[in-house]
């Protein structure tokens, strides 16, 4: 940033201020809008970028990017462009557009415009140099803004998805009045264990549960940390007045737990989920009997 300002300062000392040069530049870009835009769209197709989009779409997008680009050069403010980049990213990310494509097209535009400047000021080297001095920092900043906007949007989508997966991964289900089931599938890390416990505790309160069956059939491995989290979950549930039954401990997990010496003595364990639910029903005073068909 400091460098850019120094550069600006140098230009100002030499001759016309940067803003004048930029104005001239913008006029040039406005004048040759159609031609440059077409050239850019052609180069994009040639480089096989944005393959997920049709030719018409590319052209339409190219037009609005071009106009925003010129506007950013003219006003030297990047907020509008930033908003546009975010909006654009929002639209094209679901269609599978990659980071290199977005960066690629912006750099292509930069290239196309620079070439047109070269062509225009070929005869006047000092002028060309000054124009480039004004153009390059602004163009770099624009490329930066668009790329950062795209990456930020992508990260936002990823975070949102992570959140969604996390929510999905710990459902607390009520199967009978006052009986909750918590099936755990996949890897449990400390963060997930914590979230799981919180969700279960709130579930107990909301559903006024007396018995909870935690099924860990879908948990492949367990270490001391995770086992301790499980013990904590059981203890915390008990403090809320609920009994916890853990089901589906695999032979491997049973062996590991005994080997690492985790004390699961206080835990109520049953072989499979069915057995767990049956025991829970007994605790709650339910009795499930088959309907005998009247003959």
């Amino acid at each position: 940033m400091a460098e850019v300002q120094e550069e600006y300062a140098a230009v100002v000392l030499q001759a016309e201020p940067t803003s004048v040069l930029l104005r001239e530049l913008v006029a040039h870009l406005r004048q040759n809008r159609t031609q440059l835009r077409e050239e850019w769209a052609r180069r994009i197709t040639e480089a096989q970028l944005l393959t997920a989009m049709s030719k018409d779409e590319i052209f339409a997008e190219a037009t609005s990017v071009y106009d925003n680009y010129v506007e950013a050069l003219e006003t030297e403010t990047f907020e509008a462009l930033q908003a546009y980049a975010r909006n654009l990213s929002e639209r094209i990310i679901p269609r599978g557009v990659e980071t290199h494509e977005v960066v690629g097209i912006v750099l292509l535009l930069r290239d196309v415009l620079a070439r047109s400047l070269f062509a225009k000021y070929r005869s006047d080297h000092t002028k060309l140099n000054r124009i480039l001095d004004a153009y390059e920092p602004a163009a770099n900043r624009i490329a930066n803004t668009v790329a950062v906007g795209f990456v930020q949007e992508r990260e936002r989508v990823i975070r949102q998805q992570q959140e969604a997966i996390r929510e999905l991964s710990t459902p607390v289900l009520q199967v009978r009045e006052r009986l909750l089931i918590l099936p755990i599938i996949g890897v449990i890390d400390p963060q997930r264990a914590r979230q799981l416990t919180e969700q279960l505790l709130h579930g107990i309160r909301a559903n006024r549960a007396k018995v909870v069956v935690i099924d860990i059939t879908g948990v492949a491995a367990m270490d001391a940390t995770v086992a301790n989290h499980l013990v904590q979950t059981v203890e915390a549930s008990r403090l809320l007045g609920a009994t916890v039954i853990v089901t589906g401990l695999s032979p491997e997990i049973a062996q590991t737990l005994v080997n690492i010496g985790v004390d699961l003595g206080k835990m109520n364990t049953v072989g499979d989920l069915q057995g767990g639910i049956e025991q829970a029903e007994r605790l709650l005073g339910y009795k499930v009997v088959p309907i005998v068909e009247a003959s």
Partner: protein
Amino acid sequence: MEVPILKQGDFLIATIQAALTDADLLHLRTALLQQVVRSRSRGVIVDVTALDLMDSFASRTVQEIVHMIRLRGAETVIVGIQPEVAFAMVQLGLTLENVATALDLEEGLAYLNQKSKTIS
């Protein structure tokens, strides 16, 4: 702050309404131990719904209350521990061993009723 102790049938109900100092807790302990026999109660409910924090002293005192009241011939149940409080307690290793707990007052009463039924 004094904790009111209410008599409800065969049971005593102590509802903690705000954060208590250590002295208040000890006072509650003495009061409960005296009243439980004086009112010939068979069960005691300590309602901690309003507490958003249970430190080690509070946990230990609660545990002591339960054990002491058992020696005085009555059952105690702690009700209304908040999810966040429960989670914080187990992380500190305060698990209230051998203390009966229930979700809320209603559950606590149901628990004590059942308990006294099995005895009689």
